[in-house]
């Protein structure tokens, strides 16, 4: 970060910290640091600088008086003004709208409107909608996201209707949601599934509906927000991707090794926990991707293709 940018953030943080400094309060530096998105060292520097600030005639009662002691700060004289939050600047409002969009909230969602009307007067929502789209449009899951986020905080079980892309099956499950994760714009929840008896990852846009059961659960001490399965111990599918195939990038096949080439074709070794997931992508290649191994995946490819042809009302082969 440039020196000028550092100074600008330092100033913005100092101004944002002012409403937190209530007379007589003792605050943890780590909490303040988290509140303004800074390190403890940065927030300590911000507070030190604030202790030199005030209004004329800069007598002790007109200056911010605080003392930093190890990991806390005690406020003896509060700021003489600006003791309540100021509105969001347009660029801050833009950041908030973009973040909410990334969480699945459309720009015209009531939550976005509520936050902006209270916090920002200057943002032109129409201008922003015309120029910025930070959310993945294929995942309008705001309501489900909000319900799961609250259930995680309150430790309550949730009943979901779920479509598994791996098996192609719709099911009802009760889950204990542990953590949320976003990967490439799609939201997932890591949860203990009572039906499966183990921790599973559910993609939010495949949750048909969700309902808080009101029943509480104990969250394990160690909770992971990672959704990337370990590749160790998983069977390997060997695929041949023709030069005209789609899905030929490593990001399309998580954990895959692309290490062989022959006549322009790429061979990929793909670790898999669901043969049907691999098979569906192979079938979507419409003849440009071959599953060489395993026989389990080849059988799944046949099943996916036959099923799709059947749904079209075609002879299956």
């Amino acid at each position, binding site marked *: 970060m440039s020196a000028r940018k550092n100074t600008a953030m330092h*100033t913005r943080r*100092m*101004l944002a910290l002012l409403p937190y400094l209530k007379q007589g309060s003792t605050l943890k530096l780590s909490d303040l640091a988290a509140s*303004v*998105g800074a390190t403890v060292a940065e927030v300590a520097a911000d507070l030190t600088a*604030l202790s030199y600030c*005030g209004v*004329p005639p*800069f007598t002790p009662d007109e200056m911010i008086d605080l003392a930093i002691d190890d990991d806390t700060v005690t406020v003896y004289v509060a700021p*003489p*003004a*600006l003791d309540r939050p100021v*509105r*969001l*600047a347009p*660029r*801050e409002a*833009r*950041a*908030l709208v*973009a973040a909410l969009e*990334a*969480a699945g909230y459309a720009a015209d969602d009531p*939550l976005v409107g509520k*936050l902006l009307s209270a*916090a*920002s007067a200057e943002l032109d929502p129409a201008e922003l909608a015309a*120029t*910025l*789209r930070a*959310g993945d*449009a*294929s*995942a*309008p899951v*705001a309501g489900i996201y*909000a319900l799961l*986020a*609250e259930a995680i*905080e*309150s430790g309550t079980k949730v009943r979901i209707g779920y479509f598994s892309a791996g098996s192609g099956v719709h099911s009802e499950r009760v889950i204990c949601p542990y953590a*949320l994760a*976003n*990967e*490439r*714009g*799609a939201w997932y929840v890591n949860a203990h599934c009572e039906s499966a008896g183990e921790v599973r990852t559910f993609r939010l846009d495949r949750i048909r509906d969700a309902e808080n059961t009101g029943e509480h659960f104990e969250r394990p001490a160690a*909770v992971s927000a*990672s959704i990337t399965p370990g590749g160790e111990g998983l069977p390997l599918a060997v695929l041949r991707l023709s030069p005209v195939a*789609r899905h030929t990038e490593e990001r399309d096949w998580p954990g895959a090794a692309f290490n062989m080439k022959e006549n322009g074709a790429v061979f990929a070794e793909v670790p898999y926990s669901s043969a049907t997931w691999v098979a569906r992508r*192979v*079938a*979507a*290649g*419409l003849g440009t991707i071959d599953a060489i191994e395993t026989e389990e995946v080849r059988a799944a490819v*046949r099943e*996916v293709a036959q099923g*799709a042809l059947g*749904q079209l009302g075609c002879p299956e*082969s």
Partner: protein
Amino acid sequence: MSDPGERLVNLALFLAKTPRFVSAEELRAERLGYPDDQDDAAFLRMFERDKEALRAAGIAIEVDEYESYRIDRAGTFATAVTLSAEETATVRTAVAALATDEAFPFAEDLTIALAKLGQGAPAPVAVATALADEDPRAQGSSAAVAAEGIAARKLLTFDYTNARGESRLHEVAPYGIFFREGRWYLAGLDTSIGEIRVYALKRAERVRMNPLQPKTPDFERPDWFAVADYSLHPFQYGAEPFEAVVRFSAEDAWRAPRLAGGTGEIEVQPDGTALWRVQAADARGLAAWCVEHGPGVVPLEPQAVVDTFRMGLQEVLARHER
């Protein structure tokens, strides 16, 4: 005084504490931190920058007919926001997590926004975001510059390597940015060809904004431009658009709006199935999309897509015989 932040905070506090309009000279005389040995011109330049900085921080400064200043209190202070438990949880998890995601181009502004809303404290739940898996920092940084160019209406230049591996310098009037499946894209008018193009920012290097006359726009964005029109499904890119119909089975009809992502029109039929009428431009791409998002998703029209779907799957079966 060595810390410009202290001078700006002093200025903000003084303006907030003083109800009347105050001239620049009075402010200078209050010893808020402006150097004593500064000449008038240098002071006025610094004062202009300070006003801009305070406005950028959300402090509304009014000016009267005598070029004196005071804080617009209604425009400066936020009103209280009451959020439900679910809304609070949303802001504390997703939004707070994005503030530390390198691929999110507005992370710094977001941290300040959360601090102002009093929602910046760490969420008591595990949440992680990884918006981009390819060069997240570079994509986030390029998207941030592009967003600045869009807001200021300044031209951007960047080196771009297309899918065929060809690289050249582009000059673009940036109209909008969008995020899709882990990548940031820029839509804008390429000045060398006079057409709107979409650029994957992961393929752009050294994205920079025209530094000349920063307060004077270089271009006007057309009124009709909407970035959503450029955030397309893969099968919607192509030279010859056509209308297609995709059928979702009754069991899968609820997935139609999720997968359509706001494009086209969805009609639920009396038998519970859903028909999605959507503009497409790539028959093979649409057929592949239907297979990938199945079961329960098949093309109905046009016949070319149905044929591609059927023949492609028959080819798949032939290549995977026992």
